[in-house]
């Protein structure tokens, strides 16, 4: 744990949006003392202007902002398909507001003044979540890149293999010889860097190819 902490923080960024300069300065110093990179903004607009964000990262957001309600801002993030984990800080946490925040995907909701350990725990969790997500995103995009290198015939064969068809059935469906199907299948597996048919099926699933073809 300790080792992990000292090894990773340098690359991790915590964004802070709070309109109060005192709170901003305090959080900035606290986050840097723990070893994170801190980037502070006075408004959600400033934060949006600074996108795209570093990764992995998370956002600590004061919900009572002068320029935009924190929750409206969250809607804006969803619209931009921005998946930054958000930790809400609130001066007065009424139940409906916290429920709405959690439903909208807030990773944590903290009442000001909060215990620093609660905030640091929430940040650690949010960053871990973002790291996992980042790994998934990267895996998927590399998968997509590899898939792009397939010919359209190879893609057809791969999809049918993933659906569990035998080579003979595939040959029948596509009007090819069984040997040709075998060659396409071999090319697809090599290009996709799949170790086994099961592996190829998992990739097809990630790429969303498992819907039966019309």
């Amino acid at each position, binding site marked *: 744990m300790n080792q992990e902490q000292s090894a990773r923080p340098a690359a991790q960024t915590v964004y802070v949006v709070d309109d109060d300069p005192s709170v901003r300065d305090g959080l900035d110093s606290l986050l840097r003392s723990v070893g994170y990179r801190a980037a502070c903004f006075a408004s959600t607009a400033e934060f949006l202007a600074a996108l795209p964000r570093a990764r992995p990262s998370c956002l600590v957001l004061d919900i009572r902002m002068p320029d935009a309600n924190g929750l409206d801002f969250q809607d804006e993030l969803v619209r931009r398909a921005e998946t930054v984990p958000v930790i809400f800080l609130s001066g007065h946490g009424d139940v409906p507001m916290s429920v709405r925040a959690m439903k909208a995907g807030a990773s944590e909701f903290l009442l*000001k003044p909060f215990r620093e350990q609660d905030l640091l725990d929430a940040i650690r969790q949010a960053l871990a979540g973002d790291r996992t997500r980042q790994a998934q995103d990267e895996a998927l995009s590399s998968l997509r890149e590899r898939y792009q290198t397939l010919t359209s015939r190879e893609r057809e064969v791969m999809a049918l293999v993933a659906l569990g068809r035998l080579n003979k059935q595939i040959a029948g469906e596509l009007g090819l010889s069984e040997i040709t199907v075998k060659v396409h299948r071999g090319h697809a597996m090599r290009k996709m860097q799949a170790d086994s048919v099961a592996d190829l099926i998992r990739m097809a699933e990630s790429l969303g190819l498992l819907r039966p073809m019309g």
Partner: protein
Amino acid sequence: MTRPALLRYLSESPLLWLAITLMAGLIFVADTLTKLEIAFAVLHVVVILLAVRSGRVGAILTVAGICIVLTLTSYGLTRHGNRDSGLANAALSLLAIGASTWLAVRLERLQARARHAQSDLARMSRIMLMGELSASIAHEVSQPVTAIAANGNAALRWLSADPPNEEEARRALTRIVADAGRAGDVVARVRRLVARAGPQAEPLDLTETVAEALAVMRGELRRNEIHLRTELDDALPQVMGDRVQLQQVVLNFVLNAIEAMAERPAEERDLLVSAAGDGKSVTVSVRDSGTGLGGEAQQRLFEAFFSTKPTGMGMGLAISRSIVEAHGGTIYAAPNYPTGAVFGFTLPAVRTQGEAGTA
């Protein structure tokens, strides 16, 4: 009644008691010495009506008792005229004194009840106002506290780092000191605002009084995206008054202004609060760019239970008016140019402290 209390009574309004004594004496002398067979003592009614002005039931009853004693004494001393008509006159006078005393006491009790109800209303409105403001105040306090906690923890970490980063720690500690001061200011303002003391007349600087009230509203104004401008004269003459009550009036004006501007686009929400004086009086005004006043509204604004707001109780301005008038001032409302409304009040300035009397 103890002696010091009696003395305080008498010294409170010496002219009134002088007039009462002179009047009662004159009537007694005239009643005793004149030969006219008329009920001179009936004039004691005037003495009792004067006593009503003291505003105290005990004083009215005491004066009535003295009048009765004087009338009876006069009856006993009178040497002239018919004994029977003298008796009838004395009886008539006593009846008049009794009846007017009864009326005077009733009047005084009703007035006392009205005053009491008014102060209850003022307190109630203050409580409601505090409810509305408590969220704002909680925010004002929790901001510096949040910052202090963050800086404190940061300072500890900077110092226990290897090697310790003293420069960062020093900066964090400096911010803690500043934030603690800020939290302290908020607490001091709130304490002054909620101090449940009765109305007190003290020499006040309205610029400072108004600025304090506005400081409490800071969060509320910011949350409603209202642009506040102030024109507060630094060299205003002082006024006599109750700081908390006058701040309540200002807060009431500002709260109304915030509501009136809720429908306006954020960049057109302007609030101008000013305090100015001309040597004889001081005027405080709150100018908004809100929806303004309708014709009927302007006529009836200061009436109790009149409200243009769907959720309004119609008490705010009525209470403000009674507060301002109790300070010997006037309250007013007018349209603002090009849009919105101006609410304000004018209080008499104090020239020397000795001259300041009760309203």
